[in-house]
C-alpha cells in the first residue's frame, strides 16, 4: 500500500517569526489520483505547496517523494525529479512569446541550455511539440504573442501548458482556475482531468464544484492544520468543515 504513496509529508510545520502557518501536517498523495487541498484564505495551502516544492524550508517535518527523503533537496532538483508546480500568482515569462514560454520548459533535455554560442534556431525542432501543448490549452491564436499581452485567465492556461511541457509525474497546481472566465473553467478542468490520467495532481482550488467533480481525495486545511480528509461526499458532510469552509458561502462557484 505504501508503494502507492508518491508524495508524503510527515509532521510538516512552518513558522514565520513565531507565527505557525503550517502545523503538523501529515499528507499522503496517492499515485495517479487528483488530490485537492482546500481551505479558507490564509489556511496555509500555498505554504504547504512551497514546502513540498522546496521553495520554503520546513521548520520541522519530513517530505518523501517516491519513498525518498527530499526535505533538504533544492527546488530546481525537485523539478528534475518530476515534481513540478505552478504558482498562485500567474507565473509566465511576460516578455517571451507564448511559444517561447513553453519552449523554455521543453529545451532542457536538449542539453544545450548553457550553449551561448549556438543559434536559437537549434530550438526550432521543439516548436511542433510546443504548439501541440499550446493547442491543448486553446492558445493557438496567441502562440506568437508576448505572454504579457494575454488576459489573466489565458496566462493561467499558458502556465498549465508550460508545466505540462515537462511531462511531470506529479503536478502541483496552485489555484489553476482562479481568474478564468466561465467559458475556460470547463475546458481547463477537463484538461486537468485528461492529463491526470497519466500522472498525479495535487491542486489548491477554491472552485468547489470543480473540486467535487475532479478530485479523488480532498484535504481540508484550516489555520495550518488538517481539519478533514477523504472523498468529496465524506468531507462535505463533515460538520466542522461545513462550519469552517462550506458555511462561508463556498457551496458552489467561485470563492
Amino acid at each position, binding site marked *: 500500500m505504501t508503494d502507492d504513496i508518491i508524495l508524503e509529508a510527515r509532521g510538516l510545520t512552518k513558522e514565520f517569526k513565531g507565527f505557525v502557518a503550517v502545523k503538523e501536517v501529515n499528507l499522503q498523495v496517492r499515485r495517479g489520483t487528483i488530490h485537492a487541498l482546500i481551505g479558507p484564505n490564509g489556511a496555509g495551502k500555498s505554504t504547504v505547496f512551497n514546502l513540498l516544492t522546496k521553495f520554503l524550508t520546513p521548520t520541522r517535518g519530513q517530505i518523501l517523494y517516491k519513498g525518498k527523503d527530499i526535505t533538504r533537496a533544492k527546488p530546481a532538483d525537485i523539478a528534475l525529479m518530476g515534481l513540478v508546480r505552478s504558482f498562485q500568482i500567474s507565473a509566465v515569462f511576460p516578455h517571451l512569446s507564448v511559444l517561447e514560454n513553453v519552449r523554455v520548459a521543453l529545451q532542457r533535455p536538449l542539453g544545450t541550455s*548553457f550553449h551561448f554560442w549556438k543559434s536559437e534556431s537549434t530550438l526550432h525542432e521543439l516548436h511542433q511539440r510546443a504548439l501541440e501543448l499550446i493547442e491543448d490549452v486553446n492558445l493557438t491564436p496567441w502562440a506568437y504573442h508576448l505572454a504579457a499581452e494575454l488576459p489573466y485567465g489565458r496566462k493561467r492556461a499558458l502556465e498549465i501548458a508550460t508545466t505540462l511541457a515537462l511531462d511531470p509525474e506529479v503536478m502541483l497546481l496552485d489555484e489553476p482556475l482562479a481568474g478564468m472566465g466561465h467559458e475556460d473553467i470547463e475546458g481547463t478542468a477537463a484538461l486537468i482531468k485528461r492529463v491526470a490520467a497519466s500522472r498525479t495532481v495535487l491542486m489548491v482550488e477554491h472552485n468547489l464544484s470543480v473540486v467535487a467533480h475532479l478530485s479523488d481525495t480532498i484535504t481540508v486545511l484550516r489555520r495550518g492544520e488538517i481539519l478533514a480528509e477523504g472523498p468529496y461526499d465524506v468531507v462535505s458532510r463533515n460538520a466542522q468543515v461545513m462550519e469552517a469552509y462550506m458555511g462561508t458561502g463556498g457551496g458552489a462557484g467561485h470563492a
Partner: protein
Amino acid sequence: MTAASQTTNQAAPKTATVALRGPDAGTARTALLFAVGLAVAGAAPFALYPVFVMKVLCFALFACAFNLLIGFAGLLSFGHAAFFGGAAYVTAHSVKVWGLPPEAGLLLGVLAGAFLGLIFGVIAIRRQGIYFAMITLALSQMVFFMALQMKFTGGEDGIQGVPRGVLFGIFDLTQPLTMYYAVLAIFVVGFALIWRTVHSPFGQVLKAIRENEPRAISLGYRTDRYKLVAFVLSASLAGLAGGTKALVFQLASLTDVQWQMSGEVVLMTLLGGMGTLFGPVVGAGLVVTLESYLAATSLPVPVVIGAIFVVCVLLFRRGIVGEILARLPGAR
C-alpha cells in the same frame, strides 16, 4: 472542450498584423541596422577624429557587455570598472613589460576580466537586487585599492606609453587607420558574440530567469549557474573593452578601475536603453561625445551629464533606443 475552443477562437486577437508576427521578426531589422552602423563606422575615421571614434567603440563594447548582464539577466552590477580597468592593466603590462604582441595582451586582458568576474560572481550571485549591486561595488573598490597599492600598476601614474605593436604580426597598429579598423573589428566580434548569446538556447534561459526567476527554478533550472555564466561572459567582454582601450590610449590608469567608471557604464546603458542591442552603443556614443564637448568648455562635466541623465530617465524611461522601439509598430 469543443465549446471552449469555439469561444477561444472568437476571442482571438483583433489585429492580424500582430498575430502574424513570427518569432524571427526583428532579426531582419537588426541585421539592417547593423549593416548601416557598420558602414557608418567604416567611414567615420575620414570624417571624425579616429581616436575619438575608437573611444566611442571601446565604451560601446563596455556598455554592451554590461547590458548583457542587466538587460538580459536582470543583474545590476555596480562593479564593472574592475573588469574594464583590471583588463586594461593586464593588457598594458603584458604588452609593455613582457613585450607580448597585442593579440596576446588582449587575450590576457579578457582572461583577467573573466577571472575577476568569476570571483565577483561566485560571491555575489546569490544576492538579489540592491545587495547584488552593493557587493559588486564593494569588490570593485577592493580591486581599485589593489590597483593603487600594487607595483605593476604604477600607482597614480598608471602604465603609460604602452606600445601598440603589430597585430597577428601583420597589422601595424602604430598606423592610426590600421589601429582604427582593428578596434572596429574587435567591437564587431564582441557585439556579434553578445548578439549570439542573446539569441541562443542559453539566452532563452537567461531571459526566462530575468522575467521570472522562481518560475525558471520550478522548471528545473539552477538559476545561479546561468547567472554566473552570464556574469563571467559580461566581465570577459568588459575586459576586452578595457584591454582595447589600453592599446588605443596607450595607457592604463586608476580612472579605468574607479567606481565612477562603473557608474558611467550604467549611465550609458540606461540612457541608450537597457535590454536593447543598440541602446548601449547609442548611449556610449552620446556620453563620450558630450564629455568631449563639455571638456572644451568651462562647464562642470559630471553635473551636466548627471542633469541630462535625470531628464532622460524622467522623459523616456526605456532609454532612447527603447523608446524608439516601443513606438515602432510590431516591435518588441
